[in-house]
Protein backbone atom coordinates (compact mmCIF):
# COMPACT_ATOMS: atom_id res chain seq x y z
CA UNK A 1 0.00 0.00 0.00
CA UNK A 2 1.43 3.31 -0.93
CA UNK A 3 0.50 6.29 1.22
CA UNK A 4 -1.85 8.97 -0.05
CA UNK A 5 -0.11 12.03 -1.44
CA UNK A 6 -1.48 15.13 0.16
CA UNK A 7 -2.70 17.90 -2.15
CA UNK A 8 -0.53 20.89 -1.29
CA UNK A 9 -2.90 23.42 -2.85
CA UNK A 10 -5.49 23.33 -0.12
CA UNK A 11 -9.22 22.84 -0.02
CA UNK A 12 -10.14 25.76 -2.27
CA UNK A 13 -8.25 24.26 -5.18
CA UNK A 14 -10.97 22.09 -6.64
CA UNK A 15 -11.48 20.85 -10.14
CA UNK A 16 -14.00 22.78 -12.21
CA UNK A 17 -14.88 26.33 -13.06
CA UNK A 18 -14.05 29.30 -10.85
CA UNK A 19 -14.67 33.03 -11.13
CA UNK A 20 -16.38 34.35 -14.22
CA UNK A 21 -18.83 31.71 -15.37
CA UNK A 22 -19.87 32.98 -18.80
CA UNK A 23 -18.03 31.99 -21.94
CA UNK A 24 -15.03 29.76 -22.23
CA UNK A 25 -12.41 29.79 -19.51
CA UNK A 26 -9.70 32.39 -19.88
CA UNK A 27 -7.25 30.35 -17.86
CA UNK A 28 -6.77 26.63 -17.48
CA UNK A 29 -4.71 25.28 -14.62
CA UNK A 30 -3.52 21.89 -13.59
CA UNK A 31 -1.24 20.49 -10.94
CA UNK A 32 0.94 17.47 -11.56
CA UNK A 33 0.79 15.33 -8.44
CA UNK A 34 3.55 12.83 -7.80
CA UNK A 35 5.95 14.45 -10.21
CA UNK A 36 9.58 13.60 -9.57
CA UNK A 37 11.64 16.77 -9.23
CA UNK A 38 15.34 16.85 -8.54
CA UNK A 39 17.32 19.99 -7.96
CA UNK A 40 20.89 19.99 -9.18
CA UNK A 41 23.44 22.68 -8.47
CA UNK A 42 26.94 22.51 -9.86
CA UNK A 43 29.89 22.90 -7.56
CA UNK A 44 32.00 25.97 -8.29
CA UNK A 45 33.56 25.70 -11.72
CA UNK A 46 31.75 22.50 -12.63
CA UNK A 47 28.66 23.80 -14.37
CA UNK A 48 29.77 22.93 -17.85
CA UNK A 49 30.94 19.49 -16.80
CA UNK A 50 27.69 18.90 -14.99
CA UNK A 51 25.70 19.80 -18.08
CA UNK A 52 27.83 17.43 -20.08
CA UNK A 53 27.16 14.71 -17.56
CA UNK A 54 23.45 15.34 -17.74
CA UNK A 55 23.60 15.26 -21.49
CA UNK A 56 25.46 11.97 -21.42
CA UNK A 57 23.07 10.41 -18.96
CA UNK A 58 19.72 11.80 -20.08
CA UNK A 59 20.33 13.44 -23.41
CA UNK A 60 19.40 16.88 -22.09
CA UNK A 61 20.98 19.65 -24.10
CA UNK A 62 21.38 22.57 -21.76
CA UNK A 63 23.59 24.63 -24.03
CA UNK A 64 25.94 27.02 -22.31
CA UNK A 65 23.66 27.36 -19.33
CA UNK A 66 21.59 30.44 -20.04
CA UNK A 67 18.03 30.42 -18.73
CA UNK A 68 16.78 30.28 -22.30
CA UNK A 69 18.54 27.01 -22.98
CA UNK A 70 16.69 24.70 -20.65
CA UNK A 71 14.08 22.17 -21.54
CA UNK A 72 10.70 21.34 -20.19
CA UNK A 73 12.28 18.68 -17.97
CA UNK A 74 15.38 20.70 -17.09
CA UNK A 75 14.38 24.15 -15.96
CA UNK A 76 17.20 26.54 -15.23
CA UNK A 77 16.86 28.32 -11.87
CA UNK A 78 20.31 29.86 -11.67
CA UNK A 79 23.83 29.48 -12.94
CA UNK A 80 24.56 25.77 -13.02
CA UNK A 81 21.30 25.14 -11.26
CA UNK A 82 18.28 23.24 -12.58
CA UNK A 83 15.08 21.57 -11.63
CA UNK A 84 14.99 18.21 -13.42
CA UNK A 85 11.75 16.36 -13.73
CA UNK A 86 11.16 12.71 -14.49
CA UNK A 87 14.28 11.21 -12.92
CA UNK A 88 14.74 10.20 -9.33
CA UNK A 89 17.42 11.63 -7.15
CA UNK A 90 19.55 8.50 -7.02
CA UNK A 91 19.76 8.31 -10.81
CA UNK A 92 20.59 11.97 -11.08
CA UNK A 93 23.18 11.83 -8.32
CA UNK A 94 24.77 8.89 -10.04
CA UNK A 95 24.92 10.89 -13.24
CA UNK A 96 26.41 14.08 -11.80
CA UNK A 97 28.60 12.43 -9.18
CA UNK A 98 30.87 14.91 -7.43
CA UNK A 99 30.25 17.62 -9.97
CA UNK A 100 27.07 18.81 -8.41
CA UNK A 101 24.63 18.69 -5.60
CA UNK A 102 21.50 16.71 -6.30
CA UNK A 103 18.53 16.74 -3.95
CA UNK A 104 15.03 15.45 -4.19
CA UNK A 105 12.49 18.26 -4.41
CA UNK A 106 9.52 16.16 -5.50
CA UNK A 107 7.71 17.22 -2.36
CA UNK A 108 9.48 20.53 -2.00
CA UNK A 109 8.23 22.11 -5.20
CA UNK A 110 4.77 22.19 -6.64
CA UNK A 111 4.38 22.47 -10.38
CA UNK A 112 1.31 24.16 -11.78
CA UNK A 113 0.70 24.38 -15.47
CA UNK A 114 -1.37 27.31 -16.65
CA UNK A 115 -2.58 28.10 -20.12
CA UNK A 116 -5.43 29.71 -21.98
CA UNK A 117 -6.36 32.81 -23.93
CA UNK A 118 -6.08 35.14 -20.93
CA UNK A 119 -2.67 33.90 -19.88
CA UNK A 120 -0.87 37.10 -20.79
CA UNK A 121 -3.39 39.20 -18.90
CA UNK A 122 -3.11 36.90 -15.92
CA UNK A 123 0.67 36.89 -15.84
CA UNK A 124 0.68 40.67 -16.14
CA UNK A 125 -0.89 40.67 -12.68
CA UNK A 126 1.41 38.17 -11.06
CA UNK A 127 4.78 38.19 -12.78
CA UNK A 128 6.96 41.24 -13.43
CA UNK A 129 8.58 39.95 -16.60
CA UNK A 130 7.84 40.89 -20.18
CA UNK A 131 6.35 38.01 -22.14
CA UNK A 132 7.32 39.68 -25.40
CA UNK A 133 10.98 39.05 -24.65
CA UNK A 134 10.47 35.55 -23.36
CA UNK A 135 10.94 32.82 -25.93
CA UNK A 136 9.15 29.53 -25.72
CA UNK A 137 11.44 27.11 -23.92
CA UNK A 138 12.99 29.71 -21.64
CA UNK A 139 12.84 29.61 -17.88
CA UNK A 140 12.94 32.52 -15.44
CA UNK A 141 13.31 32.47 -11.71
CA UNK A 142 11.25 35.40 -10.48
CA UNK A 143 8.18 35.85 -8.34
CA UNK A 144 4.48 35.15 -8.42
CA UNK A 145 2.86 37.96 -6.45
CA UNK A 146 6.03 38.19 -4.33
CA UNK A 147 6.34 34.44 -3.80
CA UNK A 148 9.51 32.94 -5.27
CA UNK A 149 8.52 31.13 -8.45
CA UNK A 150 10.33 29.65 -11.41
CA UNK A 151 8.48 29.95 -14.68
CA UNK A 152 9.00 27.85 -17.73
CA UNK A 153 7.36 28.85 -20.99
CA UNK A 154 6.03 25.71 -22.62
CA UNK A 155 4.20 27.38 -25.43
CA UNK A 156 2.85 30.66 -26.58
CA UNK A 157 0.16 30.61 -23.94
CA UNK A 158 1.31 27.84 -21.65
CA UNK A 159 3.57 28.08 -18.62
CA UNK A 160 4.84 25.85 -15.84
CA UNK A 161 5.14 27.47 -12.42
CA UNK A 162 7.36 25.91 -9.77
CA UNK A 163 6.72 27.16 -6.25
CA UNK A 164 7.70 26.04 -2.79
CA UNK A 165 5.27 23.55 -1.34
CA UNK A 166 4.56 25.46 1.87
CA UNK A 167 3.53 28.44 -0.25
CA UNK A 168 1.33 26.46 -2.59
CA UNK A 169 -1.93 27.19 -0.82
CA UNK A 170 -1.33 30.90 -1.01
CA UNK A 171 -0.29 30.59 -4.63
CA UNK A 172 -3.43 28.60 -5.33
CA UNK A 173 -5.68 31.11 -3.65
CA UNK A 174 -4.01 34.07 -5.30
CA UNK A 175 -4.22 32.38 -8.66
CA UNK A 176 -7.93 31.87 -8.08
CA UNK A 177 -8.29 35.53 -7.16
CA UNK A 178 -6.26 36.82 -10.07
CA UNK A 179 -7.95 34.70 -12.69
CA UNK A 180 -11.51 35.20 -11.45
CA UNK A 181 -12.19 37.92 -14.00
CA UNK A 182 -11.16 35.63 -16.85
CA UNK A 183 -12.81 32.44 -15.61
CA UNK A 184 -10.53 29.65 -14.39
CA UNK A 185 -10.90 26.00 -15.21
CA UNK A 186 -8.98 23.70 -12.88
CA UNK A 187 -8.32 20.26 -14.28
Amino acid at each position, binding site marked *: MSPVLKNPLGAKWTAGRHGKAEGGPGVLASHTAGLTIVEVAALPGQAQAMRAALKAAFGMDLGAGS*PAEGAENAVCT*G*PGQYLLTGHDVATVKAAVGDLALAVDQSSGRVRLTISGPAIAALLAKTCP*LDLATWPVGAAH*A*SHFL*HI*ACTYFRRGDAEFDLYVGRSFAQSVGKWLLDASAEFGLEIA
Partner: protein
Amino acid sequence: MLIFCPHCGMRPSEEFTPKGLAEAPRPALGGDDRPEDDAWQDYLHTRTNKAGQTNEYFHHSLGCRRWIVVHRNTLTHEVTGSTMASEFWQNQQQAQDWEAGQ
Protein backbone atom coordinates in the same frame (compact mmCIF):
# COMPACT_ATOMS: atom_id res chain seq x y z
CA MET B 1 14.42 50.52 -10.96
CA LEU B 2 16.01 47.75 -12.97
CA ILE B 3 19.09 45.84 -11.96
CA PHE B 4 21.15 43.72 -14.25
CA CYS B 5 21.85 40.21 -13.03
CA PRO B 6 24.68 38.58 -14.94
CA HIS B 7 22.70 35.36 -15.07
CA CYS B 8 19.08 36.47 -15.36
CA GLY B 9 19.42 39.72 -17.26
CA MET B 10 17.57 42.97 -16.53
CA ARG B 11 15.21 42.47 -13.64
CA PRO B 12 12.99 44.69 -11.53
CA SER B 13 14.63 45.76 -8.31
CA GLU B 14 12.05 44.14 -6.06
CA GLU B 15 13.59 40.78 -6.91
CA PHE B 16 16.80 41.86 -5.17
CA THR B 17 17.75 42.40 -1.56
CA PRO B 18 20.46 45.01 -1.05
CA LYS B 19 23.03 44.52 1.66
CA GLY B 20 25.27 47.55 1.52
CA LEU B 21 28.40 48.89 -0.04
CA ALA B 22 31.06 46.43 -1.19
CA GLU B 23 34.11 48.52 -0.44
CA ALA B 24 36.47 46.03 1.14
CA PRO B 25 36.88 42.27 0.87
CA ARG B 26 36.55 40.03 3.88
CA PRO B 27 39.87 39.74 5.70
CA ALA B 28 41.46 36.39 5.12
CA LEU B 29 40.46 33.50 7.28
CA GLY B 30 42.90 32.83 10.06
CA GLY B 31 44.69 36.12 9.47
CA ASP B 32 46.16 38.25 12.24
CA ASP B 33 44.03 41.30 11.74
CA ARG B 34 42.59 42.55 14.99
CA PRO B 35 38.90 43.48 15.04
CA GLU B 36 39.78 47.15 15.54
CA ASP B 37 42.14 47.16 12.56
CA ASP B 38 41.09 48.79 9.31
CA ALA B 39 40.72 45.50 7.49
CA TRP B 40 37.89 44.36 9.72
CA GLN B 41 36.41 47.78 10.29
CA ASP B 42 36.37 48.51 6.58
CA TYR B 43 34.70 45.21 5.85
CA LEU B 44 31.95 45.66 8.41
CA HIS B 45 31.51 49.26 9.46
CA THR B 46 33.53 51.96 7.79
CA ARG B 47 32.47 53.24 4.40
CA THR B 48 33.72 55.76 1.93
CA ASN B 49 30.08 56.08 0.98
CA LYS B 50 30.81 58.08 -2.10
CA ALA B 51 28.35 60.26 -3.91
CA GLY B 52 28.75 58.91 -7.40
CA GLN B 53 29.92 55.53 -8.59
CA THR B 54 29.74 52.88 -5.91
CA ASN B 55 29.77 49.10 -5.68
CA GLU B 56 27.01 47.51 -3.76
CA TYR B 57 25.98 44.00 -2.82
CA PHE B 58 22.60 42.78 -3.98
CA HIS B 59 21.17 39.33 -3.50
CA HIS B 60 18.98 38.12 -6.34
CA SER B 61 16.72 36.66 -3.71
CA LEU B 62 13.61 36.30 -5.87
CA GLY B 63 15.58 35.01 -8.81
CA CYS B 64 18.72 32.95 -9.19
CA ARG B 65 19.80 33.61 -5.58
CA ARG B 66 23.22 34.84 -6.61
CA TRP B 67 24.98 37.60 -4.76
CA ILE B 68 26.04 40.21 -7.21
CA VAL B 69 28.01 43.41 -6.97
CA VAL B 70 26.27 46.22 -8.77
CA HIS B 71 28.08 49.28 -10.00
CA ARG B 72 25.69 52.13 -9.44
CA ASN B 73 25.66 55.88 -9.30
CA THR B 74 24.28 57.00 -5.97
CA LEU B 75 23.40 60.42 -7.32
CA THR B 76 21.37 59.27 -10.30
CA HIS B 77 20.64 55.59 -9.58
CA GLU B 78 22.07 54.65 -12.92
CA VAL B 79 23.34 51.07 -13.04
CA THR B 80 26.41 50.77 -15.22
CA GLY B 81 27.56 47.24 -14.53
CA SER B 82 27.24 44.22 -12.36
CA THR B 83 29.18 41.10 -11.70
CA MET B 84 28.80 37.94 -9.68
CA ALA B 85 30.09 38.48 -6.15
CA SER B 86 32.00 35.24 -6.59
CA GLU B 87 34.05 36.93 -9.30
CA PHE B 88 34.22 40.43 -7.97
CA TRP B 89 36.97 40.11 -5.40
CA GLN B 90 38.82 37.64 -7.61
CA ASN B 91 38.93 40.13 -10.39
CA GLN B 92 40.88 42.81 -8.57
CA GLN B 93 41.33 44.78 -11.75
CA GLN B 94 37.63 45.25 -12.16
CA ALA B 95 37.25 46.06 -8.50
CA GLN B 96 39.94 48.70 -8.82
CA ASP B 97 38.52 50.14 -12.03
CA TRP B 98 35.18 50.47 -10.42
CA GLU B 99 36.70 51.88 -7.31
CA ALA B 100 38.37 54.48 -9.49
CA GLY B 101 34.96 55.42 -10.78
CA GLN B 102 35.27 54.14 -14.32
